[in-house]
Each structure stands twice: as structure tokens, then as C-alpha cells.
């Protein structure tokens, strides 16, 4: 579903692309919503160019968005729709990946 034209990153996104804006697109989903990443994106990049959080913190009403990006702090483990868990900063996004992010319930 590479159209060559993708919607601009939403204002809620955290990461901001400075290069590779023309890399081929990869389609994946976040909470069922179809979104696109770029080839070569780590999952953390793929997610945080769309939104500001990766996961819910287990012991408080906060969200987390990763921290060290080098596979050390273990803050960016996310869940995929099949229940499997991946570390977003060391896992490349792949076509059809379905990320599930628990939201804080007000």
C-alpha cells in the first residue's frame, strides 16, 4: 500500500523525521488503526512518529515511550496482537505488524 504519499505525522507524534522521508513505506497497525512506517524503521520509530507513547506503566497511571534506545533500559517492551512481546528499540517494524497499546482509562 505504498502510495508514495503519506499523511504528515500527527501533532501528537514524538519523533520527528529529519531524513529518509522518501524511503519505501511499510504498513502496520496500532490498536487496529492502519498506519505507515518507513523501511529501516525500528518499531520504536514506527510508533513514535505517530504518537507519543509506547506502553502503559504497570505501577502507576503513566504512559512510557522508551528511554535509552540501545536495548539496555528495557522500557520499550510492547505487545503485539498475538500476545508476543518485543523490545521496540531493537526490533525492526515489519509489514502487517499489529501493535497493541493499553491506554490509561480515565
Amino acid at each position, binding site marked *: 500500500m505504498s502510495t508514495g504519499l503519506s499523511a504528515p505525522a500527527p501533532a501528537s507524534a*514524538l*519523533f*520527528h523525521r*529529519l531524513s529518509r522521508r522518501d524511503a519505501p513505506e511499510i504498513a502496520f497497525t496500532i490498536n487496529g488503526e492502519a498506519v505507515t512506517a518507513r523501511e*529501516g524503521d*525500528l518499531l520504536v520509530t514506527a510508533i513514535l512518529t505517530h504518537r507519543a507513547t509506547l506502553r502503559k506503566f504497570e505501577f502507576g497511571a503513566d504512559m*512510557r515511550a522508551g*528511554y535509552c534506545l540501545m536495548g539496555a533500559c*528495557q522500557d520499550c*517492551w510492547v505487545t503485539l496482537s498475538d500476545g508476543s512481546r518485543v523490545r521496540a528499540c531493537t526490533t525492526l517494524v515489519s509489514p502487517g505488524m499489529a501493535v497493541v497499546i493499553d491506554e490509561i482509562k480515565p
Partner: protein
Amino acid sequence: MTIKDKSVVVIGAGPAGLRAVEALSKAGLRPILIDEAPLPGGQIYRQPPVGARRDPKSLYGFEATKASDLHGLIVRLGDQIDYRPETLVWGIEGHRLDILSNGQFSQISFDALILSTGAMDRVIPFPGWTLPGAFTLGAAQIALKSQGVAIGRRVALVGAGPLLPLVAYQYWKAGATLCAVLDVTPFSPKVYNLLRLMRKPGTFAKGLWYTLRLALAGHPIQSGVRAIRAEGADRVEALVWIDVSGKERRVEVDAIGASFGLKSEAQLADLAGCRFVFDAKSRQWQPERTPEGRSTVPGIYLAGDGSGIGGADVAELTGEMAALSLIEDLGQPVEKARIQDLAKQLDTYAPFRTALEAAYPFPHHLIDQIDDSVMICRCEGMTAGQLRQAVSQRGATEMNRLKALTRIGMGRCQGRVCGPAAAEVLAREAKSTIEAVGRLRCNPPVKPIPVREVF
């Protein structure tokens, strides 16, 4: 059994590990090089994933040639080494490594092992540091280098070491919006240590170049900054600090890259049984390493930042040095002149390192500002107040007792992030020293391993 039949393993494919395997293969060995990343280079010369490749000059600046040379090593050595990327060593028992690779568990026995496991950012918690948008300075650099992204649309960078001007320069160069570049160490020691810093004019000149270039671009580094805090309801919205004149400043940002020097990643050395020593300069426990790269355990060698912060160039030298010691210990003669030459080169870095440590003194004021509500352990959610209560009410005077009583260091990161800061908080509360409060004992797995992959 000849030396060629020996199983020699190098863990970590950064500058130290790469120079180590180069020297080992030159001596006729076929070392196994294990690395977690898919591509060699370590964090300092980290390569973008396939599909996100860019011109080395834009990625590594002054170091582009060095980086490309190291990256090319794997190709040049070809079959002379057994390179195993995307492989985690999660435990060591005696002379056996526990491996997780491609979802499969396995083991590797070794006769000799070089640990070149690198370093990560040293973290000092401040209010708001767990908000989405707050990252380490290293993370800010990785986002740019590996992914071509800035950590936010409006970025503040905070540091206490030479990484700060470098990352700030790289962000500016890449076209990111830099809203503040803050150094929490004072300016004056950089002047006092100018002469000693000049001993490595190349390295120093680069730092100066970044700093000046930034200033010219309208992003002067503010030194002597204190009382930093991130504000925001559910993500970073602003950074607040007190400047050198005592005035509170506030800037709206959506991302912060902040950390305060480097910390050795020494978990595997601990599991291997290496003795640790306290390094007063960097305020951390490190595996004891002789100038020749030997640990206190026969057959185990240490190189690079994983056993003493020295930077990439020093890592290359210590990597080769450790390899030569290993070869020598296996009974094969090595070129003494080369060892002497490496030792001499390493000697030239020592005064520079000392000057650097002095130019960026440990920011004690950031520890002082940690109030009870600040979270120290971001995995388990333990606050400074809970740690202090364990000290004052429950008698904790040492890190492992503090862990048992509070769960600090029991989470996914196993104390990597919170350990140094918790030691500082404990030492202060117990009116002790960070040397006396000790360090968290390490147990396997050094990183999470999946239950599902056992079969």
C-alpha cells in the same frame, strides 16, 4: 591441541571487540564474535538498519573514516572470524556462555573470552524524567544516527560530558529544532583543565569546534545549570532549570535528551566472577583490568568502556591489547614491540581522561535536588522517598539489602538505569560513601529472556 583449536569468544562488536577479533585472527585464531546488534560498530559507531543507510560522513562526522574502517573489518576478515550478530549472551557459568539467538537457546564453551560490552548513559533522575519524551542523551543521538529522526519537534539536550556538544551539534546539523543545550557542570573547570585537555588536541579541538559552531548558530551551551525538571501532564511539555545567575528559566519542548556521563555495562564480567574495584573518578564499580587487559579470572579479558570509560579510541587500543594478552597466555609468542606501542599510546590518553573528568565534575547538585517524590527505579516505580525510608526506618546501609527491602533494581533493567543513582541516594541518606554502599550483585539473565523459546 594447538592454539587454532582453542575456542575464543569476543562479546561486543564495538571498537574494542572489532580490534580484538582483528588481532586474534591475525594470530591464526578464528574467534567467535557475538553481538546483540544486527550490524557491527557498537553504540558509538552504530549503523542504521539495512534500508535506513545514509552517508557515513553525515552519520559520524569527523569519525567517518574510522567508523567505515571498523565496519568494513567484518567483511575484510570474512571467514577468519565466526561473526554472530543478533545474539544475546544472557549468562556465564564458568567457561560456558548461555546464548539466545533467533529465538533459540544454546550454549558456547570457551577457552578464552574477551568482554567488550560497552557502556550506557549514566542516569540521574530529575522530576519528570519518566514522562514520554524524556530520553537519555545517548538515545537522542541514536535516534538521529540510526533512524534519521529527532526525539521531538522541539528538543532540549542536557548533559555533563563531551557527548553534549557532539549531540547538540549533530542535531543542529541535521536540521532539528534545538530549544536549549544545558551543561549541568560549571564552565570554569573546563578553563582550568584547558592545558591538560590540549594533550589530545585532536579530540579536544573537535569538542571545541562543536561548541563554537553551535554558539555561532545561536545555540550556545549554557554551563553551570542546575535544578532541572521536566514538566508536563502526560508527556514532556517544558524544561525548567535555574541558570548560572540563579534565575529560573523555562522553555517549551516536547522532548529532552538528558544524561550525565557514561556507565560501564559490566554485568557479564560480574557473572564471569571478575573482581570489581571502585573507581573514584567515575564514581562506579568496574571489573578490575590490568593495563594489558587481563581480568582477575584466568582466561577472561576486558576491553573498552565496559571495564573503564575511556572512549572509542581507547577502546580500539584496549581491544587489541586484550587480544594480544590472550594470545600470549595461550602460549603463542606475540610482538612485544606492539604491546609496548599500545601501552605507550594508551598512556597518552590517561592525562586527557583525567582532565576530562575534571572538566566535567560529577553534578552532586542534581543528587541534592532529588526530593522524595522523584522516581528512582523506573521499572518498579520506587521513589527516592521509599529508598530513604528503607535507610532511615529499616536499616538498609548497602545496595543489595536496599534492593531486598524496596525492589530497587529488581525490574526489567536489573538496576542498569537506577543502580548508580540509588547508590548516591543511599550513600547520602546513610551518611556513607557510594564506595561503602557497594553495588547490586548480578544474576542471570542479564536481559529479559522469553519463557516461550525454551523448546
